């Protein structure tokens, strides 16, 4: 059933694309439940929602990458249950991904017309470069590009590469251009240009779906805004109604399932203090932050806000540009991860398979790896001691495995994460940093890990938890620091930790006056 769209007075063309009752169900998860939306030529639709709200899933369905479990897609009056990528392209739907899909070893023209190059010389099938460039030039003009068709893509800035992607969409006679987080990595000047391009597309009758967390840009560019939350369409806002306040309010407001367990005692002494710390990825954004013994400090923020980079800088993996770190009151200048490990500062990285574990190693060897000194005598590995430590961790953390000699890669995600934690816990951390500790882990294992974290904190460890999961942030943290574009937007004490506050800080708005906070 299509939801009735309020058609504003003054001719608005009929929608050429309609989604009706779209449901996408994965085992154990309902990604989308009963979504409907219309797309009219020349309208700019802002699609907003938190991480996990279903925006990507919806766009993937439109792009033909996945099929809905239920529902129909109507294009030009023809109803179908699903699209293939070819269908989507044929219907004029162009997807510009957040991570651009360009060949950086080719030039602009080659990228735009790849697979469709104009040919010459009959059976030789050579590329007609002149014709190619003549075809590409007007497209580049339309997007306001200041580079030539023969520029190698790898020499272009991110914003310029985006222009190429949009030009490519135009070359495909797109009727709908979907932009996924186009501005999240752009500096303000380039963002302006992108908004101009969007206005240009609109003027040509091309519809745009603009997915973004940058609510002020959505405010400026969108004709309509659709808000998703937990896979459902919460509501829509029309032109004058599009205000950041309303969007934020609609994005939040679910029931939080994670029950907060308060700390046993008040936080202790300051374990880690960051003074004007600047990372190489976000220069010019000095960070001041305190982490106390016995507390769980949640570090929230949007993707790209610099949280992982901060943890990596503290851990010694990435270089520090400026500022200093005080560990237990003394200056700490890590040059290598081994420096941090030696001082009891540990990191469970975001991508446990790539950087947290050696999947081919048995569990016991993963657990002993950062602490070989304690598991060796005279430089020889003491396998018995390794096994013992691993067994202890297996019992403590409840790692479900036939034994500690099995290959770590054979464990489930939750158990793999426990191995990552196990190797650090066996070394009595002073500061434990966890980057997305429960990503890809089932609910049961999540609860266990939260319990472990609380236990750790109660025993005096200072925990820093980076998380993009709102429930996790609110349900587990004693305090929450929110990062925004490389800097700390604000730090919330327990009583201020609400979804609204976290989100507002994360998208760059300030907090409301205290009276307005629940």
């Amino acid at each position, binding site marked *: 059933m299509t939801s009735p769209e309020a058609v504003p007075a003054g001719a608005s063309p009929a929608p050429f694309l309609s989604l009706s009752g779209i449901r996408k169900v994965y085992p154990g998860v309902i990604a989308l439940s009963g979504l409907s939306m219309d797309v009219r030529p020349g309208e700019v639709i802002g699609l907003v929602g938190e991480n996990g709200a279903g925006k990507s899933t919806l766009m993937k369905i439109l792009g033909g990458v996945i099929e809905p479990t239920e529902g129909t897609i109507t294009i030009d009056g023809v109803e179908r249950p699903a699209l293939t990528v070819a269908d989507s392209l044929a219907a004029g739907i162009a997807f510009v991904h957040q991570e651009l899909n360009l060949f950086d070893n080719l030039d602009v023209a080659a990228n735009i017309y790849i697979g469709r190059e104009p040919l010459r010389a009959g059976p030789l099938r050579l590329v007609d470069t002149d014709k190619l460039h003549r075809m590409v030039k007007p497209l580049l003009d339309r997007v306001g590009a200041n580079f030539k068709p023969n520029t190698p893509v790898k020499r272009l800035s991110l914003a310029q590469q985006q222009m190429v992607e949009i030009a490519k969409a135009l070359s495909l006679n797109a009727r709908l251009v979907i932009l996924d987080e186009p501005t999240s990595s752009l500096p303000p000047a380039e963002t302006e240009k992108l908004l101009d391009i969007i206005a240009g597309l609109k003027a040509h009758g091309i519809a745009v779906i603009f997915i973004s967390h940058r609510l002020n840009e959505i405010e400026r560019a969108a004709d309509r805004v659709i808000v998703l939350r937990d896979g459902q369409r919460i509501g829509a806002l029309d032109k004058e109604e599009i205000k950041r306040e309303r969007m934020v309010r609609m994005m939040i407001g679910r029931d939080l399932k994670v029950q907060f367990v308060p700390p046993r005692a008040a936080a202790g002494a300051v374990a880690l203090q960051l003074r004007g710390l600047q990372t190489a990825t976000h220069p010019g954004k000095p960070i001041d932050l305190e982490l106390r013994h016995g507390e769980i400090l949640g570090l929230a923020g949007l993707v790209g806000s610099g949280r992982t980079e901060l943890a990596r800088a503290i851990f010694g993996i990435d270089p520090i540009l400026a500022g200093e770190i005080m560990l237990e009151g003394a200056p700490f200048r890590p040059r290598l991860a081994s420096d*941090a490990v030696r001082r009891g500062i540990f990191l469970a990285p975001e991508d446990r398979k790539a*950087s947290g574990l050696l999947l081919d190693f048995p569990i016991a*060897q993963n657990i002993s790896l950062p602490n070989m000194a304690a598991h060796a005598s005279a430089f020889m590995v003491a396998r018995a001691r390794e096994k013992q430590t691993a067994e202890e961790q297996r019992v403590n953390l409840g790692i479900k495995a036939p034994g500690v000699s099995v290959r770590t890669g*054979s464990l489930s995600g939750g158990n793999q994460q426990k191995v990552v934690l196990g190797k650090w816990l066996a070394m009595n951390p002073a500061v434990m940093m966890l980057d997305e500790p429960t990503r890809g882990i089932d609910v049961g294992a999540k609860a266990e890990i939260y319990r472990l974290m609380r236990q750790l904190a109660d025993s005096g460890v200072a925990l820093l938890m980076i998380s993009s999961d709102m429930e996790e942030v609110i349900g587990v943290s004693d305090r929450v620091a929110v990062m925004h574009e490389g800097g700390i937007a604000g730090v919330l004490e327990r009583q201020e930790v609400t979804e609204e506050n976290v989100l507002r800080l994360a998208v760059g708005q300030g907090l409301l006056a205290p009276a307005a906070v629940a």
Partner: protein
Amino acid sequence: MLKKDLWLFLLIIVVGAVVATINPRFLLPINLANTANQVGMFGLSALGQAIVILTSGIELSVGSMIALVGVLFVDFIANRNIPWPLAVLLMLMLGIAFGTIHGLLITKLKMQPFVVTLCGLLIYRGLARFYTQDATAGFGFGQNFPTLEAITTGRLFGIPAPFIAMLIATAITWVIVHRSVFGRYLYAIGKNEEAARYSGIKTHSVIIAAYVICQILTVISAIYFAMYTRSIAPSTQGNFYELYAIAAAVLGGFSLFGGEGSIIGAILGVVLLQELQNLVNLLGIPSSLNFSVMGGVIIVGVIIDQQWGLIRERRRTRESARIAAAQTLAE
């Protein structure tokens, strides 16, 4: 010893048996001693290569180093009257220096090992040729170094000295690679350097050490080769030796991606390669096909090993699925 090594050992026995049946000269003591001699010298350089390959690196300059060290060593002791222990020390220092340079370029400048050591291959060969003005380095008539020759070309109970040296080196290397903390780090870095770094391992130091160890073993093998051939033509001495070492390591189960392999396997690989060389001679196969036979055996061996690995992988996945299913039922 891994199961893979056992199969390789059996293969060596079988091939040996077949050759012996066709041409009993294979089992003549002089033939076995000769083969053992070759195995000893090539084995020393294979050990070094294996360690580097374990870190997912490669050392292509081994052959050229053998030439360079060969001409330098012979010149030092034959023409410049440098006492041979000092000459050996100087050669080792050279190897350590080069190994450190390779390691630094690879870790600090993040250059690819292939590129760095390929340039080493070219540069050192050139230096060797330049040093002797392309002349062949050799000992003068009647020049003798009794102790040195006893150590490098002598026999102990009929077993050639290089073979004994190789056995000793293998034992030490085996302990280092398979039992020591350093060895554990080698495997970790080879499997996943990033994860190793995130576990607080000083990956750069370990990698540099691997290249230094390789060069030390290469220098030792170079001295053995030099004393064996006694006349070193700098443009051909050690030619392709790095490839023999790599081939042996591959046969021994080392993956060029790093993180896998057994020292015993590498030595068995050397034995098999020398056996094949011997086979070509004794079976009357034209010696021009020498390399072809070796190449053929290596590729067949790697294919079999890979396919076997896939079968094992499939079995493992089915096993994990079974365990997971059993666990869900239990919950």
